[in-house]
Structure formats: structure tokens, C-alpha cells
């Protein structure tokens, strides 16, 4: 029962406030919609009317954006919107049973809003708490370490309509266990020291130093950072922008969360170094919606750095060195981790990847030269400024200089963040995290590589196993087919829908994997899965489609028996029960004669 009368916020008022806060700039549409969503719990039509009139945007454009992002809703989704993180590591920790427990307890059907409009319960893509799962989001707030007892307590708070602010703060505590520190995480320096070192070198020399350090992008692709900075600096344009990509959506990754919460100064300082090197005057930190709990902390760090003259105008007294950072919050779209989709989102549009070239370094945010770097890349750049290229390049391997943060989760005794010099073998990582008898490791997340036990001698680095950071460990008893199926569902959910091969292909692949899982598989379906994967790989517009087939191709190559076990039938059979498909018509007509049924086909006749 409702314990207090709650005044519903006025949607038009909420929209007006949000737009005013963003200077009525149509490029801020995503931020405006997020703030309306936060105020009202959804985006009601009067708010859309108001935005349409004031920002002068077509309604279809506003609705297009609002329906693109998973955390924005144009229909009410309940006063409490509970989303269980659906990464495979959450599942391995029992998230499915917890979700069902909560649904039963609240008398609500998964995916639906309860009759009284109080609550909805559903799943969402990995929320980045794999080191403390299973996890969920309630109205966007992250909650980890779920247990059946906690779920019952949550159900009680929801039933009693206790405002979220009054739930115990301990429930929302996010830990950042760091199990191994190396150059980056053990390096502590007073805020501004790396920047002073950079200024002492000068912009030109700094770019040279970063190039010479062989620092490469830490988001997984490994583009040389110095080259990117130089290209942006040299590209013709009226102004330059710098973006820190903290849209850490790849399931199994959480190192950006750890860096932003424990070493935000290093990240912002690295951005400021990037600004010095490229001449950018404005920067954005694109924070994934799931990490909204870091927003207040990050705003504090930014404010303090402004006060310390480490941001703003004439940084550290250097005339003409002006740079500031604005935080842009995401709203649940994995594809926005792709740099051109991220820029689209920054500009207030659906996060759909652009054609490349032109690359963002020449035409990025608002068509101007833009550097997009990963959180860890910026933080690592500080080490180069502080200690020089020679020192940095000595860490790691010839192709992969420096250190890498690994996010270890799954079947191991000590999940958490581990920093190693590049070149560390999986075997060493597994031994450090107490993985015991692991069967396989998924490196870098669903789009990465599935590595079987026989290959645990392989090494982290661009020469062998490039990674954004995720190391998901699967013990002996895990079913690698189910792992791949979870990843395929992820890609089908996160496809942006722009190109047909990916939009349709990922859904078809999901349906076929489900068909096998439900016991309707045949060698024919297996051949189809392989064919579809080739199509996805060759025909898709961006990396999401290209890599959507990786988990399946990888597990087929290394764990074929997991699939063969599921090819229960020699001949093709439908994924559904044909006779049951007539049940509705039988009921409506009252017929039950022979022609009102479809005969079971004998194996080998079809």
C-alpha cells in the first residue's frame, strides 16, 4: 500500500527545466530526455510536446531517440523499474532464479508492468558489476551482491512503496576490489603533476613522447594513441574536441568503473594532456547509464580540478590553455561504445555508427576533428607524461607497450581488477585469481575470443589476445553452448537496427540458437548457423555485426561437442509444435476432428 501521497511531477515542467539546464541546445536531446525520464519515471507525451515546440525538432526525431535507448520509456514502466543484469556471469551466480523469485513475490509478470502501475521487472545487458554479481538496476541505481534474502527485502520496500532515497544505502554500495596493481594503479601522483610534466615538455614534444611510448588504445582495437592525437591536431577545423569513452558496455568489462571511481583524477588529467596535445578546448566524458552512480563523484572531481586551475581557462596559469570537461550520460545502448555511434549520441541522436571514413579525428563531434579515447588510455597517457616514453615502452611487449587492466569474473575465487604488464599469460591470470580447473576463458567479452584450457599459455596483448579487459572464467561444469547463446541474445538486443544483415541476422541467429537449446536442432540448422555467421561477418555495417558471430564461431571451433549434443534430430524439424499452433483455432471452432490436428511426423520422412 502507498504510504505517502506522492505528487506526480508535471511532465512539461520537467521538460522545461531539463531544456533550460542544457541551454535549449537540440544537441543535448539525449540528456534532456534522460532528465525527464528521471523526473517522471517515463517520458510522457506532454513532455514530448514541450520539447518539440521549444527545441524545434520533428516529433519523429524525438520519438526515434527516445525509443532507441533501453533506459528511456515512452510508456509508463512502473514507479519501480527493476532490471536484472543478464550477463552470463550474473546467470552463473543465479540471477534467473532471483528474477523469478522477485516476480513471484510481487505478483508481476516479467517484462510487464504490474496492474497497479507500481513495478516492472525485466532484464538488461551487463551492468558492469560482474565482480560483485548478481546485480540489478532499480530506477537506474546499481545494486550488486544479490541474495534471495536481499530480493525479499527489495520486494518488501517496493510493496510498501518506500521511496528509493530511503532504501538502505549499503544496498547500493559498489566495491572496487583491485587484486593486483602495476605501473598505473600503484602510481600515485598529486593532481596536476602529470599535467605539469606535459606542459614542461610542450605540446609538440608531448605528442612525440606519446608516439614514442607506443601507447595504444585500451578499448580493445589498439590504435596508436600518439598517431590519433597528431592526426586530430593536424586536421583542418575551426575547433577540436576530445571525448573520453566511458560507455563500457562490453559484457564482463568493469575496469573503467574502477578507474573512474578510484582514479578519476588520472583519467581527467589524461584528457587534459590530450587537450594540450591536440588543442581541443572542450571535452566530453561519455558515462554509460549503468554507471550513473559515479556521476556525483565525477562532478566533484571536475569541480575540485577547476578550483585547482587544472581545468577551465588558462590552466596552471598558461595563457591560452583552456579546456573543460562535460559529462554526458548514456541511456543503455552498447553500440554507443563504437566511437562514431557515441558521437551521434553526443549530438542528440540515435546511437547509430557512421560510415568511416571520414574518421572522427578529421570529422567527429559537430563535424570537427575529435579524439575519442578509452578511459584507461587517458589514464595511461599520464604515465608517459610523468616518466617519459622510454620508461613506458619498457613495460609490456614490443607490440603492446605498458600495462593492462583485466576484469576477472566468473568461476574463480577472487574476481576483481588485476593490472599486469602486457604479455601476461592466461595461465598466470587464472592462477592469481584462483580459477581452479577452468574449462575456458572468454577474453574481452562476447565480441572477443573463447580460449579453451589447452590454450591457456596464450598471452594478453595485441600480438595474441587483444582485449578491452574482460576475462570471464568458465569452470568444468559450464556449458559453452549456453555461454554462446547468452552472448548471441546480447547482440540481438543491442543491434542498432540500421543495417539489415545485423538487425535481421542477429535475431535469426538468436532464434536458431534457441531452437537448438529447445531440442529441435538438426545438422541442417547447424549448417544454417554457420552460413548466417559468415553473412553477418561479411555484410554488416559496423563492428557489432562483424563480431556478433564471434562467440558462436569460437565455440563451434573449440567446443563442437556442445553443439553436436543438441542436434537431436537427423532431419529438419520446426522450432515450434505445429499441432499446438492449431489449438487456438480448435478452441474457437470447437472442432477436434482428424483434420483439426497436424500429425506427428516420423523421423526420416520429411
Amino acid at each position, binding site marked *: 500500500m502507498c504510504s505517502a501521497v506522492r505528487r506526480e511531477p508535471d511532465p512539461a515542467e520537467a521538460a522545461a527545466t531539463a531544456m533550460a539546464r542544457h541551454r535549449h541546445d537540440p544537441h543535448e536531446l539525449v540528456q534532456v530526455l534522460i532528465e525527464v525520464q528521471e523526473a517522471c519515471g517515463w517520458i510522457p507525451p506532454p513532455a514530448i510536446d514541450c520539447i518539440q515546440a521549444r527545441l524545434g525538432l520533428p516529433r519523429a526525431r524525438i520519438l526515434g531517440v527516445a525509443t532507441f535507448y533501453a533506459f528511456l520509456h515512452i510508456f509508463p514502466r512502473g514507479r519501480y523499474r527493476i532490471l536484472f543484469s543478464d550477463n552470463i556471469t550474473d546467470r552463473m551466480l543465479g540471477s534467473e532464479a532471483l528474477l523469478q523469485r522477485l516476480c513471484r513475490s510481487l505478483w508481476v509478470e516479467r517484462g510487464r508492468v504490474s496492474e497497479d502501475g507500481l513495478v516492472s521487472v525485466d532484464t538488461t545487458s551487463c551492468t558492469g558489476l560482474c565482480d560483485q554479481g548478481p546485480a540489478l538496476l532499480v530506477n537506474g541505481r546499481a545494486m550488486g551482491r544479490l541474495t534471495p534474502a536481499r530480493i525479499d527485502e527489495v520486494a518488501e520496500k517496493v510493496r510498501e512503496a518506500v521511496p528509493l532515497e530511503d532504501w538502505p544505502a549499503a544496498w547500493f554500495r559498489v566495491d572496487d576490489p583491485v587484486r593486483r596493481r602495476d605501473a598505473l594503479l600503484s602510481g600515485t601522483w598529486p593532481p596536476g603533476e602529470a599535467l605539469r610534466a606535459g606542459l614542461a615538455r610542450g605540446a609538440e614534444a608531448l605528442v612525440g613522447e606519446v608516439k614514442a611510448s607506443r601507447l595504444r588504445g585500451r578499448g580493445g582495437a589498439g590504435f596508436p594513441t600518439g598517431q590519433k592525437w597528431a592526426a586530430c591536431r593536424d586536421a583542418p577545423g575551426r575547433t577540436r574536441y576530445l571525448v573520453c569513452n566511458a560507455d563500457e558496455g562490453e559484457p564482463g568489462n568493469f575496469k573503467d568503473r574502477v578507474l573512474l571511481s578510484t582514479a578519476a583524477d588520472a583519467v581527467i588529467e589524461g584528457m587534459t594532456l590530450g587537450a594540450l596535445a591536440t588543442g581541443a578546448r572542450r571535452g566530453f566524458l561519455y558515462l554509460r547509464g549503468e554507471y550513473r552512480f559515479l556521476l556525483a563523484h565525477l562532478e566533484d572531481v571536475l569541480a575540485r580540478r577547476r578550483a585547482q586551475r587544472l581545468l577551465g581557462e588558462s590552466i596552471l596559469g598558461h595563457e591560452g590553455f583552456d579546456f573543460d570537461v562535460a559529462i554526458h550520460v548514456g541511456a543503455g545502448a552498447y553500440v554507443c561504445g563504437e566511437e562514431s555511434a557515441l558521437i551521434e549520441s553526443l549530438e542528440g541522436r540515435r546511437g547509430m555508427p557512421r560510415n568511416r571514413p571520414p574518421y572522427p579525428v578529421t570529422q567527429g563531434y559537430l563535424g570537427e576533428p575529435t579524439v575519442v579515447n578509452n578511459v584507461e588510455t587517458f589514464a595511461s597517457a599520464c604515465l608517459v607524461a610523468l616518466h617519459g616514453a622510454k620508461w613506458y615502452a619498457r613495460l609490456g611487449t614490443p607490440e603492446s607497450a605498458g600495462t593492462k587492466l583485466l576484469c576477472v569474473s566468473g568461476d574463480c575465487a577472487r574476481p576483481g581488477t588485476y593490472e599486469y604488464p602486457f604479455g601476461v599469460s592466461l595461465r598466470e591470470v587464472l592462477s592469481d585469481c584462483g580459477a581452479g580447473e577452468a574449462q575456458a576463458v572468454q577474453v574481452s567479452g562476447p565480441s572477443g575470443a573463447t580460449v579453451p584450457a589447452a590454450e591457456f599459455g596464450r598471452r594478453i596483448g595485441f600480438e595474441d589476445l587483444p582485449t578491452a579487459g574482460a576475462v570471464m572464467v568458465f569452470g568444468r561444469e559450464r556449458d559453452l553452448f549456453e555461454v554462446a547463446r547468452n552472448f548471441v541474445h546480447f547482440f540481438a538486443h543491442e543491434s542498432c537496427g540500421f543495417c539489415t544483415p545485423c538487425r535481421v541476422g542477429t535475431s535469426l541467429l538468436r532464434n536458431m540458437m534457441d531452437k537448438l537449446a529447445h531440442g529441435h536442432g538438426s545438422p541442417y540448422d547447424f549448417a544454417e548457423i554457420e552460413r548466417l555467421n559468415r553473412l553477418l561477418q561479411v555484410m554488416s555495417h559496423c563492428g557489432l555485426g562483424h563480431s556478433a558471430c564471434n562467440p558462436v564461431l569460437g565455440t563451434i571451433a573449440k567446443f563442437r561437442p556442445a553443439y553436436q549434443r543438441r542436434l537431436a534430430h537427423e532431419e529438419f524439424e520446426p522450432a515450434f509444435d505445429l499441432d499446438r499452433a492449431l489449438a487456438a483455432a480448435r478452441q474457437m471452432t470447437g472442432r477436434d476432428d482428424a483434420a*483439426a490436428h497436424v500429425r506427428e511426423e516420423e523421423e526420416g520422412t520429411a
Partner: protein
Amino acid sequence: MDAPVRKLRVATTSLAGCFGCHMSLLDLDEGLIGLLERIELDRSPLTDTKEVGECDVGIVEGGVCNAENVEVLREFRRRCKVLVALGACALNGGLPAQRNVLSLPLLLQEVYRAEPGAEHGRIPDDPELPLPLDRVHPLHEVVRIDHFIPGCPPPAEAIGAVLGSLLAGEARPLDPALIHFD
């Protein structure tokens, strides 16, 4: 002189389709004359034969919307060495599949009960009438399909090209210019 070649035995049918694909086949015009020297028709709307015999090729237009469609399609699969899905409805469900967004009970209610019509507010229950499935399916969701010819309708040349390659005993991919997903 070459020895007379055995003619390819071909059956065709239209399930939940409009016969437009069959009309497109007829658009091969004078090409039909040469074709008929190399194929013989089994069950087909063109022969009005009701039973399908042992065939080399079966060509099926239309999707699967009711119990009879299921029976006919399975019969084709059993009797034909090679099964070809012809046209948009066979490939994707097409126009009839537009009902898939609505539940079947709702549809039957709306069509037969809400509007006073021929059935006087009753849903027809004659055993002669095939029962509708809860949703319309493309052919390949019900049986294994060997070749697909897209289009609404597929151009005559596309049908001719596929038959030509089957006659030649090979599975040549269709010229992209002949592929229409409209």
C-alpha cells in the same frame, strides 16, 4: 545426335499465396516452349492434378497459414528431391503474415462475430475447411528448403534461371540483378 535426356519432373503449388508467382512463371512467354521440352509437370495449378507424384523439383508459392498448407508442404517435401520456395510469401510470410501482429482469436472474433456476415455471427466450423494456424510461417520454418527465389513476384527470368541451373544439375547463385526483395 545426343540421346534424349530424361525430362525433369516438376510439381508446383500455391499455399497462402495469390498465384502471382505462377503468373510470373508464365511470363517466361516463348521461353516456356523450350522449357516444356525439358521438363514435365506433375501436380500443378497448370495441370490441375491433385496428387503429387515422385518429382525432381517442387516449387512452392505462398506461406503456411493453415493445416492443409502444412499437409501439402510436407507432401511436397517427401516427394520432391529438391524444394524451391518461390516469392516473398514463401520466403517471409508476405502479405498474409501481416495478421501475425494480432492474435488469432481476436481476428476470428472481429471477422465473424463483430460483423454480421455470411456466417451469421458464427465462426465457421465445417470440417471441410482447413483450420488456421496461430500465425503464418515462411516455408523454411516448417520444412527444409533447398533454394529460395525472392521477389513479389520474382521476375520470370529469375524462375527461368533457377530451373535452368537445376536442369544443368548445378546450383548456380542467382544473378544479383534478378534478386528483388520487394
